[in-house]
C-alpha cells in the first residue's frame, strides 16, 4: 500500500510537477537502476532536493529508499514526524552522535540498520541547507557509514538551480530551470573515514565542474 502511494506521489505526480512546472531536468537517472542498493549523496540547498531525488527513483525501489532527515527539525511535532516518515519515507535521526555517558539513539546505527536490511538511503552530507551553488563542509557521518558498509555503492549527485526555486527561509516556490546530475554508482576506494568523506566530496565537485 505504501509502495503504491509513494510511487503515485513521486514517480507520477511529483515528477511531472517538477519537470513541467519547476523545470527540473534529470541527467543519468538510470544510475539508480544499475545497483540493487545505493547511498545517494548530494549537495543540499532546498527542501526541493529531497523531492527531486525521491522523484528520480523508479517505482520498484521507492518504498525501500529512505531520505535521512534531521529529527530536531522534522520531528518537532508528532504530526510532522508522521508525515515525514510516511509520505517522504524518511528516517529521522539526531544531528550528532551521543557523547560518552549520554543515552539516545546513534544516528549511524539507525542508518546502518537500513543498509543491513538491503534498503537504500538518500543523504545530504552537508547537514543543513546552504547558500545556493555553494558547498559547505561535509560531515563525517557519511564516511563512518560507508566505512562500515564497504560493499554498498554510493551515487554522487549534483543539483543546481533548486536553491534558486525554493531557497532556505522562503516559502514561495518560483520556477527556475534546474538540473539533477547523477554520477554512476561506485564503491569507496578510500579505507578510512576521512578519506571516504574526501572522496565523496570530490565526486560531487567533479559533477559540479561538468555543469560549468
Amino acid at each position: 500500500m505504501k509502495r503504491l502511494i509513494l510511487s503515485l506521489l513521486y514517480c507520477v505526480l511529483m515528477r511531472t510537477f517538477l519537470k513541467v512546472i519547476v523545470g527540473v531536468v534529470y541527467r543519468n537517472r538510470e544510475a539508480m537502476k544499475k545497483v540493487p542498493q545505493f547511498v545517494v549523496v548530494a549537495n543540499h540547498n532546498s527542501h526541493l532536493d529531497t523531492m527531486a531525488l525521491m522523484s528520480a527513483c523508479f517505482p520498484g525501489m521507492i518504498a525501500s529508499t529512505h531520505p535521512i532527515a534531521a529529527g530536531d527539525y522534522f520531528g518537532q511535532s508528532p504530526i510532522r514526524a508522521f508525515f515525514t516518515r510516511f509520505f517522504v519515507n524518511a528516517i529521522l535521526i539526531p544531528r550528532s552522535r551521543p557523547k560518552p555517558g549520554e543515552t539516545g539513539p546513534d544516528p549511524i546505527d539507525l542508518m546502518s540498520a537500513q543498509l543491513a536490511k538491503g534498503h537504500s538511503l538518500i543523504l545530504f552530507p552537508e547537514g543543513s541547507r546552504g547558500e545556493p551553488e555553494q558547498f559547505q563542509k561535509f560531515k563525517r557521518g557519511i564516511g563512518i557509514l560507508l566505512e562500515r558498509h564497504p560493499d554498498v555503492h554510493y551515487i554522487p549527485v549534483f543539483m543546481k538551480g533548486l536553491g534558486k526555486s525554493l531557497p532556505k527561509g522562503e516559502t514561495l516556490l518560483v520556477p527556475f530551470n534546474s538540473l539533477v546530475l547523477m554520477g554512476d554508482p561506485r564503491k569507496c576506494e578510500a579505507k578510512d573515514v576521512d578519506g571516504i568523506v574526501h572522496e565523496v566530496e570530490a565526486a560531487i565537485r567533479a559533477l559540479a565542474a561538468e555543469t560549468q
Partner: protein
Amino acid sequence: MNKVFSFFSDNIEKFSANPEVMIVVGLIFGILVFATLLFFIWGKIKPEANLTELKQRTKSWWMMATIFVAATVFNPVISFVAFGLLSFMALRELASISKNVRDEDRRVLIWCYLAIPVQYFFAYKGWHNLFLTFIPIFMFIWIPFMLILQGTTEGISRSMSVLPTQLMFTVFGISHLGFMLTLPPLEGFHAGGRGLLLFIVFITEMNDVFQFTWGKLLGHIKILPKISPNKTWEGFIGGVVTSSIVGYLLHFLTPLTAIEAMIVSGFISCAGFIGDVVVSAIKRDIGKKDTSDIIPGHGGILDRIDSLAITAPVFFHIVYHMYYLHK
C-alpha cells in the same frame, strides 16, 4: 468514451474541411520524410560524413512538428494551453540564464508567470485592446511597483527593465500565435486563423533552416562576427529570397495576395534574423552556446522560438492592419 470520440471526430472534420491547412500540414511531414530519407541514404553512401547533428535535429523537428500540429489543428483550447506553456517555459529559461535577475526579483518573477494565463485569456476571448495593452501598459506599471515593495534599491533599475522586456519577448510576442486563432472570419478567405498561424510558424522555422543551409553552402562574409560567428551575408540574403518565394507559393494560407505575401515574407525573414541574433547576443553575454539542452540538437526552447517571438507580432500586425482593421 463516445463523447471523447465525437470530440475528436468533430474536430478532425473541421480540420479536413480546411483544405489549405491540410495541404501545408501534408507538406510539413513530406519535408520531414524527405529530410529523414536524405540523411539516411547520405549516411549509407558516405559513412565517413558526420551527420549526427543533422539527424538529431531532424528527429527533434519530427517531435516539434507533431506537437505543433496536434496542438493547433484540433481544438483552440488545446492550442491556447500549449502556447501558454511554451511562453512559460521560454520565460523560465530566460529568467534562469539571465544574470540580471537578482535574488530579490524572485517574488516579482511570480507576477510575470501569473501574467501568462491572463494574457492568454484575453487572447482566447479575442479582447483585442486588453490583449495589446495588458503587458506593455499594465504589467509595465505593476512590475516596477512590486520591485520597490521588495525593499532594496540596489540594481533595481536594471531589474525594472529586464523583467518587462523578458515578458514582452516570451509572452507578448508568442501570445500573438494564439490571438490569430480568434480573428473573425473574412469573406473569401477560407484558411482562417489556423492558416495564418501555420503560415507564420512555417515561414519562420523554414527561414531559420534556409539561413542555416545557405550559410553552410555559400557562406563567406560574416555579418555579425562578434555576436554570431556562423551568420553570413550569403545565408541571410539566401534566407530572405527563399522565404519570400515560399511565402509567395503559400499565400493561400493568408488573406494577402501573392505579391503581398512575398513582400511580407521578406519582412518576416529579416525579423526572424533579428530575433535570432538578439538571443545569440544574450547568450554570448552569459557565456553559453545554447540556452539549455532540452531539445536534442537545438538547445533550449528559446533557441527555437527566438525568431518566432519577433516574427509573430510583426506578421500579425501587418496582416491585421491591411485586412482586419476596417472589417
